[in-house]
């Protein structure tokens, strides 16, 4: 593609051709309208996932120089090379993507909160601005609406000021009207350098991010659903002010701004000399209306998560919360119990003996996965599958998305012996690589345990899911015995690992439900 076509050209459909859409081999009148001008649309007929892919390819080809493909998909064997002392490079055999462009787009689709991190001048704010343009705002509107974190930012700077006239003349606080800041009404919200916002103002920001409303002097402004983009120079939560944990926890995905490859300096030079400004030439065909964004979100949520994929996510998630020495009560044997107790972490882990802490991936983290993070994973894997034109989530989608959602959510225990084994030392630094490795190891373990074939909990759960209607006392007792037998078998086993811990609790849950049912049956008689 020549540079002349570069900046306003919308990628030709299909952007993700697949074998089920073969090239035509007969003459067709449709060919008459193909030619030197790309197939163009006036926005009415392109499927929305295709439109988002067009937006992606326009961004990577014309707007942002991001020649990286760190979100790798393979349609067959992929060549792999090793350099130096073990630096591996994979050449993906399928369509692959740059996370720095892809994740903000997915975030736009599902209207969550994306944190862009990286050193200064790496395009974090520029990327966020492009998202605003794709949502239909013009450049001046977006620039004026960006909230720039700075140490003197007050709550009213962020949210709005009471009208002076009302302040003077109001008889009660209810009479004071607020001049709300325009950005609150926008469907794309950009907070630049959020870690430079003072703590008190962070709390006000948290309310908007978490609950979608702003409050000043008891006046409430309900904000529309929006995609958020926050930027920071580091993701450790530091900065001018420490980011409050609740605010950090509201971030759904974290994306690193990559370094600029000097081999593309020529492209940069061409832009400087020509005065090129991609934000001024966003093709109208890839701009989404508010209705289209609503439709996008609805279509994403309709994507199916097959049970086989869901089970592997369940298995993966169950590895992390369990902490045997945390409590005597079975339900409290969690890392969260340890955190709340205030006891030093290393003291607890030192007493956690018997398990293979190199093999146990749960030992690599200081926390488990919250409900919020699991929900975010589910939404973003659906978005990933939808973006690729699939109507079901694949295991690859899960593997690719997990690291970006859990980047700040799963806290590594750098003292874990896992990081001292083999080549795992680099995973102390490479958070994405660490989480991906954990998922791969989890899948290996899942396969080793043959859980797709032999899953006693799944069978018992399936029986329960069929309902209690018509279940006799004898059947209920039989099921109780089955649960107890399974627990007996497990109790004779070796060490207790995370996934077994959650399975045991699940069986206890089922046991309790049947017990209550029996009691009711007996009362009913």
């Amino acid at each position, binding site marked *: 593609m*020549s*540079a*002349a*076509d*570069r*900046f*306003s050209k919308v990628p030709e459909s299909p952007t993700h051709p697949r074998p089920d859409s073969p090239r035509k081999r*007969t*003459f*067709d*009148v*449709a*060919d*008459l*309208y*193909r*030619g*030197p*001008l*790309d*197939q*163009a*649309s*006036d926005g*009415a007929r392109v499927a929305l996932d295709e439109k988002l892919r067009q937006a992606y390819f326009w961004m990577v080809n014309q707007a942002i120089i991001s020649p990286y493909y760190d979100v790798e998909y393979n349609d067959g064997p992929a060549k792999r090379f090793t350099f130096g002392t073990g630096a591996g490079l994979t050449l993906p055999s399928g369509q692959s993507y740059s996370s720095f462009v892809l994740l903000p787009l997915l975030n736009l689709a599902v209207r969550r909160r994306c944190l862009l991190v990286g050193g200064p001048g790496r395009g974090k704010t520029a990327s966020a601005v492009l998202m605003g343009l794709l949502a239909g705002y013009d450049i001046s509107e977006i620039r004026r609406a960006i909230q720039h974190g700075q140490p003197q930012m007050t709550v009213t700077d962020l949210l709005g000021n009471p009208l002076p006239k009302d302040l003077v003349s109001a008889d009660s606080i209810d009479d004071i009207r607020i001049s709300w800041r325009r950005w609150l009404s926008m469907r794309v919200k950009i907070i630049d350098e959020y870690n430079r916002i003072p703590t008190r103002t962070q709390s006000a920001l948290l309310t908007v991010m978490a609950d979608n409303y702003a409050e000043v002097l008891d006046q409430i402004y309900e904000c529309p659903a929006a995609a958020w983009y926050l930027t920071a120079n580091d993701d450790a939560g530091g900065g001018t002010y420490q980011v409050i944990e609740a605010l950090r926890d509201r971030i759904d995905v974290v994306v690193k701004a990559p370094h600029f490859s000097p081999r593309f300096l020529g492209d940069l030079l*061409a*832009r400087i*000399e*020509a*005065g*090129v*400004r991609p934000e*001024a*030439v966003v093709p*109208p*065909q890839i701009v989404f209306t508010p209705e289209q964004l609503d439709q996008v979100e609805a279509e994403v949520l309709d994507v199916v998560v097959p049970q086989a994929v869901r089970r592997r996510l369940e298995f993966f998630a169950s590895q992390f919360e369990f902490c045997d020495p945390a409590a005597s009560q079975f339900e409290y044997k969690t890392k969260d119990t340890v955190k709340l107790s205030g006891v030093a972490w290393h003291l607890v882990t030192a007493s956690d003996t018997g398990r293979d802490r190199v093999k146990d991936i749960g030992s690599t983290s200081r926390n488990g996965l919250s409900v919020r993070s699991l929900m975010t994973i589910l939404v973003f894997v659906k978005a990933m599958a939808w973006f690729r034109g699939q109507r079901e989530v694949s295991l690859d989608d899960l593997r690719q998305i997990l690291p970006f959602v859990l980047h700040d959510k799963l806290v590594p225990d750098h003292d874990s012996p896992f990081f001292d084994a083999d080549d795992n030392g680099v995973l102390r630094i490479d958070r994405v690589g660490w989480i991906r490795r954990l998922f791969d190891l989890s899948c290996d373990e899942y396969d080793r345990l043959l859980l797709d074939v032999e899953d006693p909990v799944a069978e018992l759960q399936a029986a329960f899911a069929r309902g209690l209607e018509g279940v006799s006392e004898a059947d209920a007792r039989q099921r109780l015995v089955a649960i107890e037998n399974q627990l007996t078998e497990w109790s004779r086993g070796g060490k207790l690992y995370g996934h077994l811990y959650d399975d045991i609790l699940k069986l206890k849950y089922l046991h309790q439900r049947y017990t209550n049912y029996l009691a009711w049956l007996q009362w009913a008689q």
Partner: protein
Amino acid sequence: MGTVRAFHEALARGRERYNSLFAQAAVARPIDPAALTHHLTTLVAPAIEAVHRVRPPAVDAVLDALFEASLELVGRGLAGSEGRIPAIDAAWRTLWVAHPGHLAAAPRRVITAISNAVTHLGDGADAWVAAMERAGHVADGVERWLEAGQVLGWTCGLAELRTSALALCRSLPEPLAAVALHLPDLVDVDAACDALTVQPWRSPTVAGARLGHVGRIGAFVGLGGAFREPPDLLVRGGWILATDGHVTLTLHADRYGARLLPSEPPERTATPEPCARMTEDGRASLGNHSAVLPELQGYRRAVGTSTTLAVVLPHSHAIHLVGVTESDGG
């Protein structure tokens, strides 16, 4: 040129964007600003004024689409006063002013479709543009107009589109199909399409039929044709193929035109339809029709399908076509 106020105002509104677009397009491919300006003022400005008269709110979107297309086509040397495909300018000059409503309804789609179409039509482009102008008055919307344009692609010279064009034509309303098929007396679209399917050389609206010399195609490569040697003919899968040993081409031909297009070399030679025959004295037979065609006496090879007899003469690179027609043909 009349007033172009709407054009200038729209340009002013999008000034930053258009300047940026031009700057980017000029990065690697020099675009003559004068050529672009001429293109905009002579072809785009009248279009914008026409759109402004019928649908003012669409002006900006139409200008956006026309500007981007102008950059692409003028930049690549396809359009403009020095452009390699003058038919593009002709189409823009005629159709945007004649049908601003259609242009405004779906600017990018219309501009892309029509600009691309004329690049395929070659000598048939002018006829196509003229027919599209007529069709635009008859069509009740952009989609119908463009569908008619696809059928017109066939009837203005792209014979290979015949099968799909006939299928599409059946869905057109009669007045529009009449324009697309160049049959002003058309009353029954389905019947006409049926007739054109079985007798592609004969007008479905005229009575009478006779076998005649209906066309000629092919020439020596040194004279702009495709054949280095006088071609041989064969039939495969219901199609007539012509080969000189260097290239093998498939014949697409009917009353609207004839084309020879590349195809794969034949694996075997099939026998001609028994109902298609040629004799040494120039008597041609096709189905129930026969005629003496003295110009084809002493033929070298003759093959036929159910609708067409193709004949080559000694020492000639041309292929003569014989078919059932309503007129003198040839």
